């Protein structure tokens, strides 16, 4: 097991290994997305309180989950990069930052589009939206730091450090924002997602959430492979690879 991890941290091996997975990941993502979309948009019943607009949660909730999940992945990779100095985990940090920022932005946009028909306004300072907004800032910080340092290995280490600091802070930020929110808008939480969802509505959500997760891995693998080629462009194996294709 340990030996396998060690092998995986070599860029060449990782490149080939991830390459084998790509078609499978693509296939599973597409199938799950199609199933989830059909189920969520057509099969699932209309919500008696919110009407059709509740269907936005099938992308809003998975995006929001992913926005946090990706941050944790990024921070764990950052920690590994700082302690064991493996090249692949450094790349994972910078690529996760971009993908995570996308999911966070999606969660915000879909959240706002859900808010208009539900609350009558695009933006409210509710705890969830505010936390997502701050999370987006944290992602932007990592991306900005990474792109302003020229030496990409140093940049990746700095970004890793920031990701680790961020992940320690996120629970504190989330707690403070929730607390702040309860202070100012005590009645806002009633119309958030129902904790006891009907199974006919819950299943499509779980399918979509899985689809998003697989999609993330797929996109991450593609981006990591690109970054490996870019960084290792002077090595023999990359040259051979390019010459052969």
């Amino acid at each position, binding site marked *: 097991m340990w030996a396998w991890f060690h092998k995986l941290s070599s860029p060449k091996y990782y490149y080939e290994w991830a390459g084998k997975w790509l078609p499978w990941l693509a296939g599973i993502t597409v199938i799950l997305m199609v199933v989830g979309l059909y189920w969520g948009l057509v099969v699932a019943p209309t919500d008696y309180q919110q009407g059709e607009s509740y269907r936005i949660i099938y992308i809003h909730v998975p995006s929001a989950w992913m926005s946090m999940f990706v941050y944790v992945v990024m921070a764990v990779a950052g920690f590994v990069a700082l302690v064991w100095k493996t090249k692949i985990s450094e790349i994972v940090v910078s690529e996760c930052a971009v993908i995570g920022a996308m999911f966070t932005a999606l969660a915000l946009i879909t959240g706002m589009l859900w808010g208009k028909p539900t609350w009558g306004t695009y933006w409210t300072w509710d705890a969830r939206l505010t936390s997502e907004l701050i999370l987006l800032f944290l992602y932007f910080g990592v991306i900005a730091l990474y792109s302003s340092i020229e030496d990409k290995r140093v940049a990746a280490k700095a970004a890793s450090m920031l990701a680790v600091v961020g992940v320690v802070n996120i629970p504190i930020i989330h707690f*403070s924002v929730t607390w702040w929110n309860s202070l100012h808008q005590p009645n806002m939480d009633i119309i958030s997602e129902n904790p006891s969802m009907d199974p006919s509505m819950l299943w499509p959500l779980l399918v979509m959430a899985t689809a998003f997760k697989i999609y993330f891995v797929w996109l991450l693998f593609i981006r990591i492979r690109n970054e490996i080629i870019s960084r290792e462009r002077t090595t023999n194996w990359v040259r051979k690879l390019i010459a052969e294709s």
Partner: protein
Amino acid sequence: MLSALITIIRRDLLVAFRRRSELVNPILFYVIVITLFPLGVSPDHEFLSKLAPGVVWVAALLAALISMESIFRQDFDDGSVEQLFLSQHPPTLLILGKVIAHWLITGLPMLVIVPLMALLLYIPEQAIPTLFLTVLIGTPILSLIGAIGVALTAGLRGGGVLLGLLVLPLYIPVLIFASAAVSTAIEGLPSSGHLAMLGSGLILALILAPLAISASLKISMN
């Protein structure tokens, strides 16, 4: 151990006092930002005192941010950063000393001036002790977190703006708890809960931040 801490604090204070002109800049900035709010929003007595806790603290965040850069800037230029890691004493201890010195230069003047700012913003007298306490507990947290950001961005062009992007989101919990403490004090309610929250934040920052700063400096030295 303690003597090393005191040595580095004394050294940094001495250096700072040799450049006295730069010493007052952050505090002037702080005062000016606070003055802008009544001008930009409204000088109405009731309205201002409602806005005041937020204004005092947003201004404190910004002032802490712009004063932060000086903590390691010179050390990177003159090669003292390397020497921190070759010392007989643990780098984290010396770094803690540097943060303390920096807080004495930037946070302490804020502490002195904040009751005056409270008068400008019509914060009732009963809330001033709480305000004072939030600044006393809150600004060291700002220094500790800010120093991580500076350690990561030192030696970069345009580091100042970048620093804001990295550090301001991390300042949010301090802003929330500190201004809420002042607000409750204005309403005449006890604010010890909020202050305890800030206090535990300070303890956490004191333990973790020096480690993060030290690791960040090592990365930036590359």
